[in-house]
């Protein structure tokens, strides 16, 4: 899951080297934290949160496959 978000985020931003993803594992639900460069924040959130929403949708599809839940947090 972590790799998936990292991969997508790196494709979207201007500074792929500054993309950092960490995963806090839970029994059922894991939280994926995404950190990007300040000027790229808008790129991963998108207009009205549209990009963030798309990433979350992809994430839920991917985690549904392994019967888990994952939530994406974008950290400022």
């Amino acid at each position: 899951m972590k790799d998936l978000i990292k991969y997508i985020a790196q494709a979207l931003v201007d500074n792929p080297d500054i993309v950092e993803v960490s995963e806090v594992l839970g029994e059922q639900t894991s939280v994926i934290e995404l950190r990007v460069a300040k000027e790229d924040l808008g790129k991963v959130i998108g207009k009205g949160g549209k990009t963030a929403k798309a990433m979350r949708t992809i994430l839920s599809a991917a985690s549904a496959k392994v019967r888990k839940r994952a939530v994406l947090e974008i950290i400022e």
Partner: protein
Amino acid sequence: MNTLEIEGKNIDEAIEKACREFNVPREKMNIEILSEGSKGFLGLVGTKKARIKASLLSLDVALEKDFEPPREIKEAAPARKVVEPKKTSAAAIEPGENAAGEAKELLQGILSRMGLKFPVSVEETAEAITLNIKGDGSGLLIGKGGQTLDAIQYILNKAVGKSGRDKRMIVLDTEEYRDRRDEYLIALAAKLGGKVKKTKKPLTINHMSARDRRVIHLALKSDEALTTRSRGEGAYRKIIILPSKKE
């Protein structure tokens, strides 16, 4: 020619059942939507099943066995750590090929990280780059109302479009979902349009994506007696079908 009436939770499911029943791909069947089904109230009261009537288009295809997509496992795209904005000497770039290749690579990267190793084919026209994923029929990639497919498509457009070289739209499709969806929407538009004409009262369809709304608008455009409009904001934009002012 045998015709079957098939029920399902929704039209997509009913069509899928029909495909299995006849063992042919969707496009080789003639499908008539009898009732659309509804989730009812809170999924408890008044649930109605979707019903379709399905028959084969012609006899000679009846035994074709190519329905089950071969589960070939394609090698995962070579892991690309960093998608660097390519600052190659601009003149040498053939804009088309580059964007399509980039989109395909990116898509395969996303799929392999989702644990899905499906082959992807690319088709290019002057207006769009179409990426077709050969899925396993599970619908996982499509999601409710196509939301997963749309999300990946949106990301691809963002990521590939940011270099700004190629202005073409990237369209993502799997298991003929886009065509099936169009068919369903056009049938829905026709049905609701008929209802509006009969009752002379406007009808609202639940919020749907811009693409889906466009299909409905276009389907009813030629009908003089009806007008279509969108109302609401963002993801909650709904479509309204109303009777035209002049009779």
